[in-house]
């Protein structure tokens, strides 16, 4: 049984195409991640699925309801957390929560069980105005408000953007617990490293889905050999590798460079670098990361941001 079914959705604003022929399904009870940078079309897709925006063509359904015909039914069963912080900054934590509870004809008490884990972290600040909370706390409050009516599906549009790595990790731990309670979660993020927390992911760029799979599935499909390389002068290493003509791609990756060689082997590379005066050279073949896959797909879809 699928919670979300999207078939061939297109959406344009004036002459820019925001979404081109998007199709995917989200199974009941899974965490599905939409991964891509700002401007990829994630928010547009979320707004179409949450019945806030009309698509140009294609069809989309949430829990069997059509996003246009049955919008009222959908609005009753979804929890939505928009990308921008969308709570009342001048109201306190408690007041925000109570307000959203009444909007859905329910009370905080009746749903306390579901939000308890998250709310206990907010409780010390319950009289503080939402606008004065730190980034991580704001996200937790927004999640509480989206959960207050026990939705069947959660739509979380970039919940972790601008949030520090520790708060992000905590946020994802919460999502895992919600999943265990049977809630389907569609979440978008520009942070590629969050992919491993999703059951399945879609990589989205420039309004198109480049690939949909489990994380392992996507990584297995990486078509080339990938090497991590480092030396004592990384800046020079980067420019030397780009000039040498032996590599297809060279990208900086934390303390290493990731490169895909043109030929199947990169045996000559170490000698070449020594010749160039590099010291402390380390080369090893590695498994691709989501980010490697994303960049590889980007180049094949011809949709890098430069030309």
């Amino acid at each position, binding site marked *: 049984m699928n919670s979300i079914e999207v078939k061939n959705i297109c959406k344009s604003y004036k002459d820019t195409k925001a979404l081109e022929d998007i199709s995917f399904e989200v199974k009941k009870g899974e965490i599905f991640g939409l991964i891509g940078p700002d401007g990829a079309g994630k928010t547009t897709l979320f*707004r179409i699925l*949450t*019945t*806030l*925006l*009309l698509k140009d063509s294609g069809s989309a359904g949430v829990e069997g309801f059509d996003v246009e015909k049955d*919008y*009222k039914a959908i*609005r*009753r069963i*979804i929890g*939505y957390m*928009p990308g*921008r*912080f*969308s*709570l*009342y*900054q*001048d*109201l306190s934590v408690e*007041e925000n929560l*109570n*307000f*959203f*509870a*009444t*909007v*859905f*004809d329910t009370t905080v008490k009746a749903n306390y069980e579901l939000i308890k884990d998250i709310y206990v972290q907010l409780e010390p600040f319950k009289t503080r*105005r939402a606008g004065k909370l730190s980034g991580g706390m704001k996200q937790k409050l927004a999640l509480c*408000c989206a959960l207050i009516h026990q939705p069947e599906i959660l739509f979380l549009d970039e919940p972790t953007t601008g949030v520090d790595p520790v708060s992000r990790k905590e946020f994802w731990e919460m999502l895992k617990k919600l999943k265990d309670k049977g809630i389907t979660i569609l979440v978008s993020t520009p942070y590629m490293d969050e992919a491993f927390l999703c059951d399945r992911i879609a990589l989205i760029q420039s309004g198109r889905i480049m690939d949909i799979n489990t994380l392992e599935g996507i990584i297995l499909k990486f078509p080339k050999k990938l090497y991590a390389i480092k030396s004592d002068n990384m800046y020079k290493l980067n420019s030397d590798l780009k000039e040498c003509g032996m590599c297809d791609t060279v990208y900086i990756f934390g303390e290493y460079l990731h490169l895909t060689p043109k030929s199947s082997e990169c045996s000559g590379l170490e000698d070449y670098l020594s010749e160039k005066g590099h010291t402390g050279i380390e080369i090893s073949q590695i498994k691709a990361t989501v980010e490697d896959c994303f960049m590889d797909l980007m180049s094949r879809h011809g949709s890098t941001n430069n030309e």
Partner: protein
Amino acid sequence: MKKFWGFVIKECLHLLRDYRTMIILVGMPIAQVILFGFAIRNELDSLRIGILDNSRDNVTTEITSKLLSSGYFILDGYFNRHEEIEAAFEGGRIKEAVVFGSSFAEDILRDNRADIQIITDASEPNMANLALSYTSGIIQNYAASLSEEQQIPLSIGTEVKMLYNEEMKSVFMFVPGIMALILMLISAMMTSITIAREKELGTLEVLLASPLKPLQIILGKVAPYLLLSMINVAFILIVSTTVFGMPIRGSLLLLVAECALFIMTALSLGILISAISNSMQVAMAISLVGLMLPTVLLSGFIFPVENMPYALQVFSHILPAKWFLIIIKNIMLKGTGFAYIWKETGILLFMTAVLLTVSIKKFKIRL
């Protein structure tokens, strides 16, 4: 119903948190009434006039002395010929000229009526209108006392403008105008801004994605402002009756009911504005230019509608404030009952119904 109250509570909290706005909303009406009442007194003081008396009998002399002793006018000089009047106006020496026809007293006694020509410098229309009203008021007073004396109805032909404002206190003319202005400001502008604010801050996105119906959102947002506006009405009425001795000659209940109706009209205008604007700035600009300016300038608040060019007179019909002013003046100053103002009330009701329907239709269920 619970949703509605939840909304009202939330909206009241917004208002209370933003104490600066709150102070302005409650303080402004009182400040405005006092400001207009004391500072911007629209009264005549020592206006220079000239007199051409072709009759020079006891009646004209008496009228002249009544005019000059009123304190509003200062005599610049007597004219001998009609041509001199224009020269005096052109030289800027006088702002008003009073011309008595020949054999004035005889006409009155014989035909029971006589005519006076009053010429004013209409390059300052407001002043001119005021001077005209004052002059005719004094002349009518005199005519009335004369009729009593002679036991026969007499009339002196001038236009009567300030019949219901015998004491000629300008504050009486302003209070209804200020009321219209304040109610417009708070009801229309504040509602349009508060809804536009939800759009701008993105909170409307969450509300729209919830099962709330547009009507529920609108009613919940508007209710606190209805309350606030009614409180302001009370303030304005208290200040204007106690400080300036303004009368409420008609039914207070009717007055309050009409105010509530006008507030509803203004609120629905505010909702309509918010439906077509996407940011607080736009909502504010539309409210100011589209509502405040016409209310101040064209409703009859400052400039009498009768003095406007025909096109503007026609335009003034679509201003709710114009009808509201007529209603208020009728109730407060004339003391008339509903029978005399049902037409104006009907117009306001109709406007409210149309505006509400349009704005609820226009209120988008999507982004």
